[in-house]
Protein backbone atom coordinates (compact mmCIF):
# COMPACT_ATOMS: atom_id res chain seq x y z
CA UNK A 1 0.00 0.00 0.00
CA UNK A 2 2.82 2.38 0.92
CA UNK A 3 4.61 1.64 -2.36
CA UNK A 4 1.44 2.50 -4.24
CA UNK A 5 1.14 5.77 -2.34
CA UNK A 6 4.75 6.69 -3.01
CA UNK A 7 4.36 6.16 -6.71
CA UNK A 8 1.45 8.52 -7.11
CA UNK A 9 2.68 11.73 -8.63
CA UNK A 10 -0.17 13.91 -9.68
CA UNK A 11 1.00 17.43 -9.15
CA UNK A 12 -0.52 20.16 -7.04
CA UNK A 13 -0.93 23.74 -8.30
CA UNK A 14 1.98 25.78 -6.95
CA UNK A 15 0.70 29.35 -7.07
CA UNK A 16 -2.54 28.77 -5.23
CA UNK A 17 -0.60 26.76 -2.64
CA UNK A 18 1.93 29.55 -2.12
CA UNK A 19 -0.80 32.15 -1.79
CA UNK A 20 -2.69 30.02 0.72
CA UNK A 21 0.53 29.34 2.66
CA UNK A 22 1.28 33.05 2.90
CA UNK A 23 -2.27 33.74 4.10
CA UNK A 24 -1.92 31.03 6.75
CA UNK A 25 1.38 32.50 7.88
CA UNK A 26 -0.11 35.98 8.28
CA UNK A 27 -3.04 34.54 10.19
CA UNK A 28 -0.65 32.57 12.41
CA UNK A 29 1.30 35.74 13.12
CA UNK A 30 -1.90 37.46 14.26
CA UNK A 31 -2.93 34.52 16.44
CA UNK A 32 0.44 34.59 18.20
CA UNK A 33 0.34 38.35 18.67
CA UNK A 34 -3.19 38.10 20.08
CA UNK A 35 -2.21 35.29 22.46
CA UNK A 36 0.84 37.21 23.67
CA UNK A 37 -1.26 40.31 24.19
CA UNK A 38 -3.83 38.41 26.22
CA UNK A 39 -1.16 36.69 28.28
CA UNK A 40 0.52 39.98 29.01
CA UNK A 41 -2.71 41.43 30.31
CA UNK A 42 -3.92 38.56 32.42
CA UNK A 43 -2.20 35.16 32.43
CA UNK A 44 -5.19 32.86 32.51
CA UNK A 45 -5.75 29.13 32.44
CA UNK A 46 -4.50 27.27 29.42
CA UNK A 47 -7.05 25.50 27.23
CA UNK A 48 -7.42 21.87 28.27
CA UNK A 49 -5.99 19.43 25.80
CA UNK A 50 -3.38 21.82 24.43
CA UNK A 51 0.26 21.07 25.03
CA UNK A 52 2.19 22.56 27.91
CA UNK A 53 5.85 23.44 27.82
CA UNK A 54 7.63 20.81 29.80
CA UNK A 55 8.50 22.07 33.27
CA UNK A 56 6.39 25.16 32.99
CA UNK A 57 4.04 25.68 35.88
CA UNK A 58 0.74 26.90 34.53
CA UNK A 59 -1.27 29.29 36.60
CA UNK A 60 -3.93 27.42 38.46
CA UNK A 61 -4.76 23.81 37.92
CA UNK A 62 -4.84 23.87 34.16
CA UNK A 63 -5.84 20.26 33.75
CA UNK A 64 -9.11 21.14 35.37
CA UNK A 65 -9.45 24.51 33.75
CA UNK A 66 -12.54 25.10 31.74
CA UNK A 67 -13.79 28.11 29.92
CA UNK A 68 -16.39 28.57 32.59
CA UNK A 69 -13.73 28.77 35.31
CA UNK A 70 -11.68 31.70 36.41
CA UNK A 71 -11.47 33.14 32.91
CA UNK A 72 -15.08 34.14 33.24
CA UNK A 73 -14.40 36.03 36.42
CA UNK A 74 -15.66 39.56 36.18
CA UNK A 75 -16.44 39.21 32.45
CA UNK A 76 -20.17 39.34 32.73
CA UNK A 77 -22.20 37.05 30.52
CA UNK A 78 -19.62 36.30 27.82
CA UNK A 79 -17.33 33.39 28.59
CA UNK A 80 -13.84 34.24 27.44
CA UNK A 81 -12.10 31.36 25.68
CA UNK A 82 -8.83 30.32 27.24
CA UNK A 83 -5.75 31.74 25.56
CA UNK A 84 -3.95 29.21 23.39
CA UNK A 85 -0.47 28.21 24.44
CA UNK A 86 2.19 28.97 21.87
CA UNK A 87 4.82 26.25 22.02
CA UNK A 88 8.54 26.82 21.45
CA UNK A 89 8.26 24.93 18.16
CA UNK A 90 5.54 27.30 16.99
CA UNK A 91 7.52 30.37 17.96
CA UNK A 92 10.42 29.17 15.82
CA UNK A 93 8.13 29.48 12.80
CA UNK A 94 8.36 33.24 13.15
CA UNK A 95 12.13 33.19 12.84
CA UNK A 96 14.11 33.54 9.63
CA UNK A 97 17.13 31.85 11.15
CA UNK A 98 17.91 28.58 9.49
CA UNK A 99 17.68 25.61 11.82
CA UNK A 100 20.70 23.40 11.40
CA UNK A 101 21.19 19.86 12.63
CA UNK A 102 23.20 19.45 15.79
CA UNK A 103 25.51 17.09 13.93
CA UNK A 104 26.40 13.50 14.74
Amino acid at each position, binding site marked *: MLKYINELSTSIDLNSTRVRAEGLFKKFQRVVEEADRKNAKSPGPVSPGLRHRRGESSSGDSSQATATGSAAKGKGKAIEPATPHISDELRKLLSKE*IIRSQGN
Partner: protein
Amino acid sequence: MNCLEKDVHRTDRNIPIFAGEDTPHPDPDSPFSDVGTNVHLEQMKDMLITYNEYNTTLGYVQGMSDLLAPIYAVLQDDALAFWAFVGFMERMERNFLRDQSGMRAQLVTLDHLVQLMDPKLYLHLQKADSTNFFFFFRMLLVWFKREFDWDDVLRLWETLWTNYLSSQFHLFIAFAILERHREVIMDRKFCPDVLQVHISN
Protein backbone atom coordinates in the same frame (compact mmCIF):
# COMPACT_ATOMS: atom_id res chain seq x y z
CA MET B 1 27.85 3.07 -2.76
CA ASN B 2 25.08 0.86 -4.14
CA CYS B 3 22.44 3.09 -2.55
CA LEU B 4 23.99 6.19 -4.09
CA GLU B 5 24.19 4.73 -7.57
CA LYS B 6 20.67 3.31 -7.34
CA ASP B 7 19.39 6.73 -6.33
CA VAL B 8 21.10 8.52 -9.22
CA HIS B 9 19.82 6.04 -11.79
CA ARG B 10 16.23 6.60 -10.72
CA THR B 11 16.32 10.36 -10.07
CA ASP B 12 14.58 12.58 -12.60
CA ARG B 13 15.20 10.31 -15.59
CA ASN B 14 12.32 12.04 -17.34
CA ILE B 15 14.27 15.30 -17.34
CA PRO B 16 16.18 15.62 -20.65
CA ILE B 17 19.59 16.19 -19.12
CA PHE B 18 19.34 12.93 -17.16
CA ALA B 19 17.41 10.89 -19.68
CA GLY B 20 20.04 9.46 -21.98
CA GLU B 21 21.92 6.18 -21.71
CA ASP B 22 24.51 6.82 -24.40
CA THR B 23 27.60 6.08 -22.35
CA PRO B 24 28.71 2.61 -21.34
CA HIS B 25 29.10 2.20 -17.62
CA PRO B 26 32.72 2.83 -16.59
CA ASP B 27 32.76 0.23 -13.83
CA PRO B 28 32.32 -3.39 -14.93
CA ASP B 29 31.71 -4.48 -11.32
CA SER B 30 28.80 -2.13 -10.78
CA PRO B 31 25.27 -3.57 -10.69
CA PHE B 32 24.54 -1.02 -13.41
CA SER B 33 27.37 -2.15 -15.68
CA ASP B 34 25.03 -3.54 -18.28
CA VAL B 35 22.79 -0.46 -18.16
CA GLY B 36 23.86 2.65 -20.00
CA THR B 37 24.59 5.90 -18.26
CA ASN B 38 25.33 9.47 -19.38
CA VAL B 39 27.82 12.17 -18.55
CA HIS B 40 25.40 14.01 -16.25
CA LEU B 41 24.45 10.94 -14.25
CA GLU B 42 28.17 10.27 -13.82
CA GLN B 43 28.67 13.87 -12.65
CA MET B 44 25.84 13.39 -10.15
CA LYS B 45 27.55 10.28 -8.79
CA ASP B 46 30.91 12.05 -8.53
CA MET B 47 29.43 14.99 -6.67
CA LEU B 48 27.52 12.77 -4.28
CA ILE B 49 30.51 10.52 -3.65
CA THR B 50 32.48 13.68 -2.92
CA TYR B 51 29.75 14.80 -0.56
CA ASN B 52 29.87 11.42 1.14
CA GLU B 53 33.52 12.14 1.93
CA TYR B 54 32.94 15.80 2.71
CA ASN B 55 30.18 15.18 5.23
CA THR B 56 32.12 13.17 7.75
CA THR B 57 29.28 12.85 10.25
CA LEU B 58 26.41 11.74 8.04
CA GLY B 59 27.70 10.91 4.58
CA TYR B 60 25.34 10.12 1.74
CA VAL B 61 21.77 9.18 2.68
CA GLN B 62 19.03 7.98 0.34
CA GLY B 63 17.09 10.96 -1.02
CA MET B 64 19.96 13.42 -1.22
CA SER B 65 20.22 12.91 -4.98
CA ASP B 66 16.72 14.40 -5.25
CA LEU B 67 18.07 17.60 -3.72
CA LEU B 68 21.14 17.80 -5.93
CA ALA B 69 19.48 17.08 -9.28
CA PRO B 70 17.66 20.43 -9.77
CA ILE B 71 20.73 22.37 -8.63
CA TYR B 72 23.02 20.56 -11.06
CA ALA B 73 20.48 20.72 -13.88
CA VAL B 74 20.37 24.53 -13.58
CA LEU B 75 24.05 25.23 -12.89
CA GLN B 76 25.48 22.41 -15.07
CA ASP B 77 28.88 22.96 -13.53
CA ASP B 78 29.87 20.24 -11.11
CA ALA B 79 32.05 22.43 -8.87
CA LEU B 80 29.41 25.16 -8.56
CA ALA B 81 26.65 22.63 -8.09
CA PHE B 82 28.63 20.77 -5.43
CA TRP B 83 29.13 23.83 -3.27
CA ALA B 84 25.56 25.03 -3.80
CA PHE B 85 24.46 21.58 -2.69
CA VAL B 86 26.68 21.81 0.39
CA GLY B 87 24.95 25.07 1.27
CA PHE B 88 21.52 23.56 0.72
CA MET B 89 22.43 20.54 2.82
CA GLU B 90 23.31 22.77 5.77
CA ARG B 91 19.61 23.32 6.21
CA MET B 92 18.44 19.92 4.93
CA GLU B 93 20.88 17.72 6.82
CA ARG B 94 18.55 17.48 9.79
CA ASN B 95 16.02 15.68 7.57
CA PHE B 96 18.47 12.82 7.09
CA LEU B 97 19.65 12.21 10.64
CA ARG B 98 19.56 8.55 11.52
CA ASP B 99 17.64 9.14 14.75
CA GLN B 100 14.94 11.01 12.77
CA SER B 101 15.07 13.86 15.29
CA GLY B 102 15.06 16.52 12.57
CA MET B 103 11.99 15.10 10.84
CA ARG B 104 10.25 14.56 14.15
CA ALA B 105 10.79 18.18 15.13
CA GLN B 106 9.15 19.38 11.92
CA LEU B 107 6.25 16.95 12.19
CA VAL B 108 5.65 18.03 15.81
CA THR B 109 5.68 21.68 14.72
CA LEU B 110 3.18 20.90 11.96
CA ASP B 111 1.05 19.08 14.53
CA HIS B 112 1.05 22.12 16.85
CA LEU B 113 0.28 24.39 13.91
CA VAL B 114 -2.81 22.47 12.83
CA GLN B 115 -3.96 22.15 16.44
CA LEU B 116 -3.67 25.91 16.93
CA MET B 117 -5.02 27.12 13.61
CA ASP B 118 -7.63 24.51 12.72
CA PRO B 119 -8.74 22.69 15.87
CA LYS B 120 -11.78 21.19 14.10
CA LEU B 121 -9.63 19.57 11.45
CA TYR B 122 -7.15 18.52 14.13
CA LEU B 123 -9.85 16.75 16.12
CA HIS B 124 -10.98 14.96 12.99
CA LEU B 125 -7.46 13.85 12.18
CA GLN B 126 -7.04 12.70 15.77
CA LYS B 127 -10.12 10.50 15.41
CA ALA B 128 -8.69 9.01 12.25
CA ASP B 129 -5.41 8.56 14.15
CA SER B 130 -3.50 10.60 11.58
CA THR B 131 -1.93 13.10 13.90
CA ASN B 132 1.52 11.65 13.53
CA PHE B 133 1.33 13.28 10.07
CA PHE B 134 3.46 10.51 8.64
CA PHE B 135 1.93 11.19 5.29
CA PHE B 136 3.79 14.47 5.21
CA PHE B 137 7.11 12.71 5.70
CA ARG B 138 8.03 12.42 2.03
CA MET B 139 6.86 15.94 1.29
CA LEU B 140 9.06 17.44 3.99
CA LEU B 141 12.02 15.11 3.44
CA VAL B 142 12.81 16.36 -0.07
CA TRP B 143 10.89 19.66 0.00
CA PHE B 144 7.88 18.56 -2.09
CA LYS B 145 10.12 17.29 -4.92
CA ARG B 146 7.59 14.56 -5.83
CA GLU B 147 4.50 16.69 -5.30
CA PHE B 148 5.12 19.37 -7.91
CA ASP B 149 6.19 19.50 -11.54
CA TRP B 150 9.91 19.98 -12.14
CA ASP B 151 9.56 23.69 -13.03
CA ASP B 152 7.38 24.30 -9.99
CA VAL B 153 9.89 22.53 -7.73
CA LEU B 154 12.53 25.00 -8.93
CA ARG B 155 10.19 27.94 -8.29
CA LEU B 156 9.15 26.64 -4.89
CA TRP B 157 12.72 26.05 -3.72
CA GLU B 158 13.73 29.55 -4.82
CA THR B 159 10.87 30.87 -2.67
CA LEU B 160 11.88 28.76 0.31
CA TRP B 161 15.56 29.69 0.01
CA THR B 162 14.78 33.37 0.54
CA ASN B 163 13.48 32.70 4.07
CA TYR B 164 10.87 35.32 3.25
CA LEU B 165 8.47 35.34 6.24
CA SER B 166 10.13 32.30 7.84
CA SER B 167 13.05 29.91 7.50
CA GLN B 168 10.46 27.14 7.84
CA PHE B 169 7.94 28.39 5.33
CA HIS B 170 7.86 24.87 3.90
CA LEU B 171 5.73 23.89 6.90
CA PHE B 172 3.15 26.45 5.85
CA ILE B 173 3.27 25.00 2.36
CA ALA B 174 2.53 21.59 3.91
CA PHE B 175 -0.28 23.10 5.99
CA ALA B 176 -1.68 24.83 2.89
CA ILE B 177 -1.77 21.49 1.07
CA LEU B 178 -3.62 19.96 4.01
CA GLU B 179 -6.09 22.86 4.17
CA ARG B 180 -6.82 22.52 0.47
CA HIS B 181 -8.29 19.08 1.19
CA ARG B 182 -9.97 20.14 4.41
CA GLU B 183 -13.59 19.73 3.39
CA VAL B 184 -13.05 16.35 1.83
CA ILE B 185 -11.13 15.13 4.86
CA MET B 186 -13.84 16.29 7.27
CA ASP B 187 -16.67 14.87 5.19
CA ARG B 188 -15.39 11.37 5.00
CA LYS B 189 -13.94 8.86 7.37
CA PHE B 190 -10.30 8.65 6.41
CA CYS B 191 -7.82 6.15 7.64
CA PRO B 192 -4.17 7.29 7.40
CA ASP B 193 -3.42 5.35 4.20
CA VAL B 194 -6.45 6.70 2.36
CA LEU B 195 -5.66 10.19 3.58
CA GLN B 196 -2.16 9.96 2.16
CA VAL B 197 -3.46 8.65 -1.16
CA HIS B 198 -5.94 11.49 -1.37
CA ILE B 199 -3.41 14.19 -0.58
CA SER B 200 -0.93 12.71 -3.05
CA ASN B 201 -3.67 13.13 -5.65
